[in-house]
């Protein structure tokens, strides 16, 4: 058989065989992976609000493609303690201090930051200073009115990167309150 037919045919056959095997493993693992991710997400919401009703969390579909919201990864409405908050998933974009992923809740009625949690960080040296939920949250709660963002020594780059992401979330929330709904 011509080499130009035989070789691609052989390679195609190998790809088909191993692709099928891979698909079988994917079909077995995918439901478990999705379940794991859901549990992780729910655990993260419970970390934000102790009395959260995970079954009634509502995914909100807003367009964050604009440069003004480039650090926002998503937003959900979380009912808790007879209240409701918008929880923003944020990620910093400062590679020098490492990317930090965190969640921040803004109370729907008052527009005040009411929860905060670091999900992951690639730079423990700087970002770990922002991991203490209670201390950081205490300072963040007054950030919107006083304009003073929590500052920790040696973490200037992390602070600036996180401040940028928090500002974007606050601006987005304000745009919703003012009727700039782009749902």
């Amino acid at each position, binding site marked *: 058989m011509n080499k130009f037919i035989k*070789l691609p045919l052989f390679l195609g056959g190998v790809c088909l065989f191993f692709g099928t095997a891979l698909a079988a493993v994917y079909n077995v693992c995918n439901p478990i*992976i999705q379940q794991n991710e859901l549990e992780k997400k729910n655990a993260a919401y419970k970390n934000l609000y102790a009395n959260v009703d995970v079954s009634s969390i509502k995914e909100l579909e807003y367009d964050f493609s604009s440069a003004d919201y480039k650090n926002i990864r998503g937003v959900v409405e979380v009912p808790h303690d007879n209240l409701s908050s918008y929880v923003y998933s944020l990620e910093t974009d400062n590679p020098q201090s490492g990317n930090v992923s965190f969640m921040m809740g803004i109370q729907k009625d008052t527009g005040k930051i009411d929860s905060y949690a670091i999900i992951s960080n690639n730079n423990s040296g700087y970002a770990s200073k922002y991991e203490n939920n209670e201390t950081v949250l205490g300072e963040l709660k007054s950030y919107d009115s006083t304009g003073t963002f929590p500052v920790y020594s040696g973490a200037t780059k992390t602070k600036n990167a996180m401040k940028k992401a928090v500002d974007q979330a606050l601006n987005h929330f304000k745009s919703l309150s003012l009727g700039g709904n782009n749902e």
Partner: protein
Amino acid sequence: MKKDGKLATFVNPLIRENAILVNLLGLCPVLGITTSLNNALGMGVAVILVLFFTNTFISLIRKWVPSEVRIPVFIVIIACFVTMVEYLMKAFTPDLASSLGLFIPMITVNCIILGRAEAFASKNGVVDSMLDGLGTGVGFLISCLILAFFRELLGTGGFTINNPFNNELLFSFLPFEAIKMPIFVQSSGGFMMFGLILGVFYCIRIMMEESKKEKEKKAKEAENKKIAAEGKEIK
């Protein structure tokens, strides 16, 4: 290969032909993941699985693979098994998978895997290739564990072992936490520790070779003396 060489096929890659400490192959993931014993164990097991199955399959189909496309075929097989291992880890050890991150898919381009496929599995029988894959994988795991042991001990002041399946804390022993040196769990510390371990390993190897040579020399001298004594007796 001779039947009595089967044990050697498995044992040689463990220490004498260790892929990391002797051949210095696949160092990127080794330096990246050996920040803790947990990560080293996870990566080691993933590499053992990939090496074992790729070596087996490549050896099985070696007679039908046209030499012109052998490298793409090997890469397809390796990538397939690496992706399977990645799915399985994400499903059953999600925290370990997220901790190893990009280093799991990067096993595909690890030169140890392709190196063993090309140098051994494509030229030898199935059983020998299985043993070679296991031996090389276990050798990789041993090197990772040695490096992780010292990096975690010095970098965190002790050891923390978690159950990879549910991330529950199994064991935590941090007696030197007050004097920990975090540089050892960073990339620069990884290089330093790897250099130190490599230095010690080579010192031990050279000493063992010297002592072997010395023994051989002494045995030869004793034999020469014996021959000379026998010669004198004949005279």
